[in-house]
């Protein structure tokens, strides 16, 4: 492999990785605060793609307006899921919450299937992201530059919310000790709802970039990014927002480079994440930046 090809693949890897990272932040925030693997997170990503698709296609909105509306709808969806499905099982055994999350994931996938059919729908890239820059022999899609940029921007925004606002303080407090936080007069349910809202907003951003990267939308598109984002979150140390993005980068780059170096393994791409996951869980269960978890 020559240097130029390597650069091209590296950029692809970083772009894909930042996308995983962006979705992983939503996972890690929810897990950090209520210790629930939100299996439906990937399907929230999928729903955001459909919202954006319908905004552009059916309501003939300009793409930015459609993306904005889709983000708002996705945020609302996140809050509705928390209120309707997760809050009622909050005091139930952990296993019940986990099964509920799996149920919600399946509900979203099949609702999408019933409402919009199983056939993939084409998603058009707006002009701004579809441009191709050429540096030497390396061809770069504008989207590949925008994705990491937007991810880093949103990460900074999220860090600001978590570390510099009162709501963020409450969130950190809930993640430490939910009961004590409640006793301090903080409305824990509202803080958790806010966490879901923020996570879903990021999922929406990730979803629309995903839809532009692989320009089509189908009811099951959330499954793979959902699983991989979870792996990224574990890799980075679950509960840690910076770790999630870092984990995403590592996963994305590893995946793309491995396929570039050994093209005969291309078919196994989707399995790589799990091999990494098992390795991580065996050798460093708390991830790169994670604190030890209580059993």
């Amino acid at each position, binding site marked *: 492999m020559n240097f130029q090809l390597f650069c091209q693949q590296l950029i692809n890897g970083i772009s894909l990785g930042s996308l995983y990272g962006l979705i992983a932040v939503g996972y890690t925030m929810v897990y950090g605060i209520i210790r629930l693997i939100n299996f439906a997170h990937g399907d929230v990503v999928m729903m955001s793609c459909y919202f954006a698709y319908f905004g552009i296609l059916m309501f003939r909105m300009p793409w930015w307006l459609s993306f904005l509306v889709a983000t708002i709808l996705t945020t609302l969806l996140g809050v509705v899921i928390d209120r309707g*499905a997760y809050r*009622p099982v909050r005091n139930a055994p*952990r296993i019940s919450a*986990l099964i509920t999350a*799996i149920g919600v994931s399946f509900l979203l996938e099949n609702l999408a299937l*019933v409402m919009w059919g199983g056939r993939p729908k084409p998603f058009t890239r707006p002009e701004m992201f579809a441009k191709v820059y050429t540096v030497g022999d390396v061809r770069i899609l504008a989207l590949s530059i925008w994705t990491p940029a937007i991810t880093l921007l949103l990460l900074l925004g999220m860090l600001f919310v978590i570390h510099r606002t009162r709501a963020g303080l409450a969130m950190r407090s809930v993640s430490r000790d939910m009961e004590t936080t409640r006793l301090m007069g903080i409305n824990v349910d509202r803080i958790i709802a806010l966490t879901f809202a923020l996570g879903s907003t990021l999922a929406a951003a990730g979803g629309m970039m995903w839809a532009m990267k692989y320009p089509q939308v189908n009811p099951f598109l959330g499954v793979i990014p959902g699983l991989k984002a979870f792996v990224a979150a574990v890799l980075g140390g679950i509960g840690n927002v910076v770790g999630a993005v870092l984990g995403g980068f590592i996963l994305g780059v590893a995946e793309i480079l491995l396929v570039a170096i050994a093209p005969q393994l291309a078919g*196994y791409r989707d399995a790589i994440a799990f091999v990494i996951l098992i390795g991580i*869980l065996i050798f460093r269960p708390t991830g790169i930046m994670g604190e030890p978890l209580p059993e």
Partner: protein
Amino acid sequence: MEKHHRRNQLLTLAAVALLFTLLYLASRYLSDYQVRILNNTAIFVVLAVSYNLINGITGQFSLEPNAFVAIGAYTSALLTLSPAEKQLSFIIEPIIWPLSVIQVSFIWSLLAAGIVTAFFGFLMGFPVFRVRGDYLAIVTLGFGEVVRVVANNLQRITNGPLGLKALHNYTNLWWAWGFAVVTLFFIIRLVASSYGLAMKAVREDEVAAEAMGINAFRTKLLAFTTSAFFEGVAGGLLAHLITTISPTLFTFFLTFNLLIIIVAGGLGSTTGAVIGAALFSFGGEWLRAVEEPMTIGSLHIPGIPGMRMVVFSIILILLMIFARNGIMGRKEFSWDWLIDRCRLARVIRGGGK
């Protein structure tokens, strides 16, 4: 308890005899479609009962049965196809050597399916049981995904995305229900044995169980391997019932269905798993009604494919919110219980006179 032992054994024998009489009548008088549902039920009973062994009895929340069923189905299918048939199927790349010439009868292929799957389950157990709880769920889910990806790519063994077609439909009521009875017998005995008690101890409190001298890792591995064996054989039965298999058949979808079954029946109850499997198989057929076009008066509602899964998902969520213990909770059916019930009913009726 002890003194009723013989009586209970006889009652069990009578129940099995009754089951097979009913199956004989079913095979003679029911339509192909109805027999098909009964076959499905038996396979789901096997899958649910063995999945419950690891999830409900041992309390290790795992999400891999689709992987086990896939391994079993492929093993059994590859062993029953004749060399000529395999040559016809593998059009892109030829099948690798020993598989290209081997052909065994159905029963041996099922046994091989169980053993091969158990072996994979055993191997998987080592990395998988280094983690617990949520992580266990995601790692086993990952394994399911890996098996599917591998099946899609090992062109020379699995025929890749094309899958294996034109299997012989060996699976009939006798095979399916015969194996269901064997599985039930084995798993009920296992759960009642000291191994079963160890599994329950691990479920309740792993640390305390270890302190009592139970090797938690070995106990989990035993449950996992056993579960893999039966799911593997069920996979072989399933393959020879539907006669066409491909990687898309063994997605997480299958695991999700089993999860609903054991949760609805009651996690941790073998009886519950059986009831859940029966409800699911029959309920799933009734629910086809919601997918069919309906005409009410002048109102015409077009069919909505996929509506069944929407309904199942909602049922699962509602179960978790309102009826977490499912139908049976952790209780099991027993003859003593049934006879006590009958006596009680007689006493109440007698008292009413």
